[in-house]
């Protein structure tokens, strides 16, 4: 009932639900919501049967492109994206990790050019027999997905 109320309270916009509580503010940062001018409701540490404590973000009158929401897959792959119109969920958008991640990850190699010069970071997502890594396009170092440093 609580979940339905949260979603239904939005007339038009986007709801991002089931965000692990410790990832909520990283999702805010990845989507640059700090500069968003629409109404935003953020809830955190809400009880969740699936993830223990969860976060939820509701953004009014705002639609995100798929390549924007897919960035969330990097840190919260089980988050749910619901697109709301007229109080109805019109789309449940699955999160798909993109082939390339731009901007949002910092290279862990201290000697990488991206840590010394104004260079936008770019990582390839490498799927190695089920183990996913990020490979820096520039210095070619690999880092495990779960160890990726979010900027």
């Amino acid at each position, binding site marked *: 009932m609580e979940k339905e109320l949260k979603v239904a309270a939005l007339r038009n916009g986007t709801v991002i639900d089931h965000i692990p509580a410790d990832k909520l503010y990283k999702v805010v940062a990845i989507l640059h919501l700090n500069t968003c001018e629409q109404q935003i409701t953020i809830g955190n540490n809400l009880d969740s049967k699936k993830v223990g404590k969860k976060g939820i973000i509701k953004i009014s009158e705002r639609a995100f492109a798929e390549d924007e929401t897919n960035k969330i897959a990097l840190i919260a792959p089980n988050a749910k994206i619901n697109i709301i119109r007229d109080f109805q969920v019109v789309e449940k958008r699955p999160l798909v990790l993109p082939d390339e991640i731009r901007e949002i990850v910092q*290279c862990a*190699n201290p*000697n*990488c*050019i*991206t840590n*010394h*010069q*104004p*260079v936008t970071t770019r990582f390839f997502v490498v799927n*190695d027999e089920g183990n996913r890594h990020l490979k*820096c*396009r*520039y*210095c*070619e*170092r*690999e880092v495990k997905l779960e160890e990726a440093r979010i900027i």
Partner: protein
Amino acid sequence: MSKNSLVSISDYSKDEILAILDSAADFEANPNRKSLDGKVIATLFFEPSTRTRLSFETAVIRLGGSIIGFSDAATSSSSKGETLNDTIHMVSCYADAIVMRHPLEGAARYAAEVSPVPIINAGDGANQHPSQTLLDLYSILKTQGTLENLTICLVGDLKYGRTVHSLIMAMSHFNPTFKFIAPDELRMPDEYKVFCKKHNIAYTEASELNENFNDADILYMTRVQKERFQDLMEYERVKNVYTLKNDMLAHSKQNLRILHPLPRVTEIDPDVDSNEKAYYFKQAQNGLYIRQAIVSKVLS
């Protein structure tokens, strides 16, 4: 961005690698040509280098081209805080191609992205040094008559040594068997062992040099590089672990050849130099022909 840049050995297919080696053999037969007449090549060395810079510059001069550039970052605008992006754009106004060595890893890939003229990576930190890899392949081909089915023993700093990492990737086209010999602190990183497994490349590991290379066709020695260590205590512990001496070669295969990217410090005793199996100085000479082939290819 120029599509002809050479940043990493993985930029070249097996056929492209073989074509470069063929071309190098042509240049070895006839190194003095005027095929780069009127061309200007910039050599930007933000980090010290002797062999690589001199051989690139000699390659260009022997092909009739001209050289501009610097061999010390302190004499360039980067010392005033100029970004690499700006340096590359500025130099590309003057030169037809840029040969660059830079201490930061990924600098060459970035330069290739922003440069309107081809970039040749002459080493980016501990990352890639593709012209070294190609001259290594050329040296192996010349001494063994083939690149296929060889046993290659890699010795020394296998953790930080970019030449051995690139050599593994390049040799993956030719069904090699590798022996990795390194102290525990400098063992081959897991990602390259995973690479070998994925490409069905057999390898073994050992931590003693001794005569562990008696079944090898190539003994590839490397220097333990002080500049790659963040912990100098670790460097002091491992720097003299391996020294190859002439008497250790007594039971090695007749066709064995010893390679080393140079400079060497203590890892090959001078008494090895007179052994016919010592090939490292000829290997350095091969760098000239390979670099003639590379510069010609990127400007073709």
